[in-house]
């Protein structure tokens, strides 16, 4: 089992950024996308996100399962929303503005030009957010998380807790594998077996219980080791130094500017309204 976080973007332009940049960009961009409902602007944001994503140098092969998940998961969500729960009207548009395309058989849900446009926009928005989020997995060195969040204001002990989590990943994964092996030689194969949900839960006890209890029981020494080296008794100095360089600043400035612009345009009612595709209106016979 491969448990190491995949720091595949190592050396790419994005990976050379200060890790705080990647975290802040996700936050800035999410707030930006949140305010936009005009599909033409969403597509523009998607284009920006794609350029950003490409700069992490992520190979398609390594992440296609995640993309597949995005399409299936959000596709399903949007479809259910559209065909089951929609009333054909979209909030924020003038009432009586539903241009009926057809009615879903059996359920009787009206599908209008507006609700269909909304569905397409929802889908693109989600795609845009995922595109900005994915590089975090590949372009931040695992050992940088703690100090990055520390410098973003997370309390010191918890920031170190993040580092410690990465420290425990490989060793606990190895212990987990040992437990799986140890049960296999008692005739219990965890990964084989039925797909039934209940049996799956019950069958996980022989591997989950020993792993968890041993990990906790084994923590005593780690706790002592930290107390003995004065953990949490004062302000820490972190060996790893983070400093924004010019490009980092430019990236942050760019994304902040984007957020500001979109917010202003939103106030003016320019980007925050749903864009109803004209050809759908035509189809609906309006």
């Amino acid at each position, binding site marked *: 089992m491969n448990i190491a976080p995949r720091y595949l973007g190592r050396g790419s332009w994005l990976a050379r950024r200060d890790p705080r940049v990647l975290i802040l960009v996700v936050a800035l961009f999410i707030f930006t996308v949140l305010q936009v409902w005009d599909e033409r602007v969403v597509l523009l944001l998607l284009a920006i996100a794609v350029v950003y994503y490409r700069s992490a140098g992520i190979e398609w092969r390594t992440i296609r399962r995640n993309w597949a998940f995005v399409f299936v998961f959000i596709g399903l969500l949007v479809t259910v929303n559209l065909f089951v729960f929609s009333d054909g009207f979209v909030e924020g548009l003038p009432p009586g503005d539903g241009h009926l395309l057809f009615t879903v058989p059996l359920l009787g849900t009206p599908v209008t030009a507006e609700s269909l446009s909304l569905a397409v926009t929802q889908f693109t928005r989600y795609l845009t957010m995922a595109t900005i989020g994915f590089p975090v997995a590949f372009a931040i060195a695992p050992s940088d998380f703690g100090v990055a969040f520390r410098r973003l204001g997370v309390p010191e002990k918890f920031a170190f807790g993040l580092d*410690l989590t990465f420290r425990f990943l490989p060793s606990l994964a190895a212990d987990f594998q040992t437990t799986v092996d140890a049960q296999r030689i008692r005739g219990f194969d965890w990964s084989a077996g039925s797909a039934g949900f209940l049996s799956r839960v019950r069958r996980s006890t022989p591997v989950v219980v020993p792993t968890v209890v041993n990990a906790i029981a084994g923590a005593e020494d780690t706790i002592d080791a930290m107390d003995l080296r004065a953990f949490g008794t004062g302000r820490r100095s972190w060996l790893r130094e983070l400093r924004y360089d010019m490009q980092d600043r430019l990236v942050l400035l760019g994304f902040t500017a984007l957020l500001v612009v979109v917010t202003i345009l939103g106030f003016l009612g320019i980007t925050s309204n749903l864009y109803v595709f004209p050809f759908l209106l035509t189809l609906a016979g309006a």
Partner: protein
Amino acid sequence: MTTATLNRDNLWEVTSRTIVYSAIGAALYGILLVAQIPIPGSTVSVRPAFALVPFFGYAFGPIVGFFTGTVGNAIGDQISGWGALTSWNWSLANGFVGLIAGLAPLYLSRWTNGSLRDRAIGGAVAGAIAVVIGFLFVFTDAILQGMDVATIFTTLYLPVIIGDLIGTIILVPILVYAWEPVKAQLGR
């Protein structure tokens, strides 16, 4: 003669112990999330490992529970290439489950102070309450994605809490039963 006793009643105290248990909880949850193959055909994967979140909260307090849920889920996403922050609201929802389970002494003191059997049952009850309440946070998807609340309820909230409730109710008591006798021998 000095008799040293340490304050061990404060739910919100952050010691080395809190941090180490948090990190172990988060790492284990992340590992098990990745190790468990999702059942094909359902959008939300079935994940018995989820029971670790209410368990760590219940056994070690709200802070450990919150960290285990939030960071564990984010790490699971990070390892699988999803990105730690992409589904940040889901990570937080997991965290709230751990947090609420960790507050059990405040609302379930009759069970948390009882016999081993009571404490095991208390774990299941606290876990169940925590799952139902904590995952309410995924309704933020309604805002983030502009979805209907009914859509979120039927396609996300309901499937997730049903799966996680079953996992929690079965596994948390088993973990409590396994851990408590060991705890009696360690500790300071």
